[in-house]
């Protein structure tokens, strides 16, 4: 499925909307996610990480574009493919990696794992492992904001597979009915495990599912960080100012398997390669280069900085202790 690429004129216009610092921040954010996830995959292969491991590789533009538009006070409800979400929200990479390794110093002290990252300091409320599970919860966040008269918004992010589950309809309906400040951001990475979206959804234009709920809907090129950012800004304004929810569909592509156990036999390597041609990091770099905002030396420096952060995260995680089995019953109930 194609989303139209921008013309040169459009690219220039998009760049003008942001400061150089902000643009470099987006670049670095995407890079951190990519390198962190590559390292997580490696740690998984080395059996340092157990369970399921779902990566954000190929979706970096969606994550960086959307999350960079949020304020610190905004809320995020996410799903199991959320390492990048935690990082983009500002979680300490050390504590994210430590959680993946099941260490006591992890974000959730080893109780959550890869699929269940919570960081309330950065207003990330999971990390939920059942498809569609966090959508009703995000509506609850909308209720909270509405109830307390706050100015925050709630970002609810999920895969396109989640738009086929019942909770999706219930949640969008309620959010629209009650005018709640929730942004439903669907990462259409085209496959739910091995099932391509058009084999599962009668409505292939996922964003159009908003129509049934009288909600604003929009499709955006999820390989283009600025396009995502701009769409997200619109959705945020709609939520914060107009108190109306939106459904955004960001079309991206998962380069790697659904999880580490997936060899990806349901698609051709040509298809994967074609999408890699549209790589969000490479392309954004090219744009920044052409605009004279970044050069090879700066790119190298950024790579080194990110490599340092990732290595530091691994070192921290590996040298951290495991939780003590004596702590097993802690935190079942709030005191």
């Amino acid at each position: 499925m194609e989303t139209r690429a921008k013309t040169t004129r459009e690219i220039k216009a998009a760049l003008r909307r942001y400061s150089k610092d902000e643009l470099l921040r987006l670049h670095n954010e995407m890079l951190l996610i990519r390198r962190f996830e590559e390292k997580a995959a490696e740690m998984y292969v080395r059996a340092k990480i157990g369970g399921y491991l779902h990566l954000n590789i190929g979706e970096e533009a969606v994550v960086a574009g959307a999350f960079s538009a949020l304020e610190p006070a905004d809320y995020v409800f996410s799903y199991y493919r959320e390492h990048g979400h935690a990082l983009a929200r500002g979680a300490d990479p050390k504590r994210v990696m430590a959680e993946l390794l099941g260490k006591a110093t992890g974000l959730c002290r080893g109780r959550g794992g890869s699929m269940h990252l919570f960081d309330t300091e950065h207003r990330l409320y999971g990390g939920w492992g059942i498809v569609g599970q966090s959508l009703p919860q995000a509506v609850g966040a909308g209720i909270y904001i509405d109830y307390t008269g706050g100015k925050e918004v709630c970002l609810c992010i999920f895969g396109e597979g989640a738009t086929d589950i019942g909770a999706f309809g219930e949640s969008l309906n309620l959010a629209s009915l009650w005018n709640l400040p929730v942004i439903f951001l669907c990462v259409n990475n085209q496959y739910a495990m091995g099932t391509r979206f058009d084999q599962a959804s009668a409505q292939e234009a996922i964003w159009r599912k908003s129509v049934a709920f009288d909600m604003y809907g929009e499709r955006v090129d999820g390989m283009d960080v600025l396009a995502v950012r701009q769409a997200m800004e619109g959705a945020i304004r709609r939520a914060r100012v107009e108190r109306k929810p939106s459904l955004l569909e960001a079309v991206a592509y998962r380069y790697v398997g659904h999880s580490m156990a997936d060899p990806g036999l349901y698609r051709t390597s040509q298809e994967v390669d074609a999408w890699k041609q549209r790589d969000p990091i490479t392309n954004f770099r090219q744009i920044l280069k052409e605009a004279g905002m970044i050069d090879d030396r700066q790119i190298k420096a950024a790579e080194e900085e990110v490599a340092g952060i990732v290595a530091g995260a691994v070192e921290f995680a590996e040298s951290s202790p495991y939780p003590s089995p004596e702590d097993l019953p802690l935190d079942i109930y709030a005191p």
Partner: protein
Amino acid sequence: MPVITYREALHQALVEEMRRDERVFVMGEDVGLFEGAYKVTAGLMREFGNKRVKDTPISEQAIIGSGVGAAMLGLRPVVEIMTLNFIMVAMDQIVNSAPKAHYMSGGQVKVPLVVRTPEGAGHQLGAEHSHCLDAWFAHLPGLKVVAPSMPADAKGLLKTAIRDDNPVLFLENLALYTTRGEVPEGEHLVPFGKADVKRQGEDLTIIGLSRMTLMALEAAKRLEEQGISAEVVDIRSLRPLDVDTIINSVKKTNRAIVVEEGWRSFGFGAEVAARIYEEAFDYLDAPVVRIASAEVPMPYSKPLEQAALPSVDRVVEAAKKLAA
């Protein structure tokens, strides 16, 4: 002390807690304008308005799930599921979201959510609308499950539930709404995890919960006429479960009957019996007796339905045999 119905007691608890704490709000199908399928929320919308009394669409996942979300952020939702039978379409939120958020987050989030819902059979509602599934939910660590039998407990447990920082499944019972009893006015809290000896006795212990406690008390009255002294322990709270009160009673009477409205296999009675065997085996003069519903989907026809349900007669019969 005023004598009021179970329904009024629940209503009192809601009103008092909503007046006490601005963060408490009620949400569910037909809870506002329609005043609740069983009228527990009657008048609330008039007093508190539609911000604090929210009529929802028929969306159980969204009702419980948004309750979880709002609770995690700091509100104290009391959501109503019209009857327990409809909770099944929201199992994900009840099983995966509510009881796990605190643990999976390493203690970062709390879920002070109350899910109120009536269960129970006996009204010829057929197989789909007659469930008693308390054991399913009591199986879940992270959730608290209570089931009051009497108006005073209904009020006191509901107030405790609303103040608890954990998700609570609050099981009412269709047959109990019109039952009456003395209920303290104003502040009246019943702690979780405390069973209540509703009647003292010497010869045997009958353990019940919710409507089955009333059945046990009725049976105990009849048994007394026949010279058998039965103690009745009302569990009130399934999770946390007050094992001590059960064990102390059994150590005194040496015989126990568990009465439950749900199915026997893997049920409440099985759990209580196991606890008794584990902790009071040497005190028992006879095996624990379990009285439960027949293991059939609940039939519609009145005589069939009555045959399927536990009854005072069945409890009395079992007690006489056990005491013999």
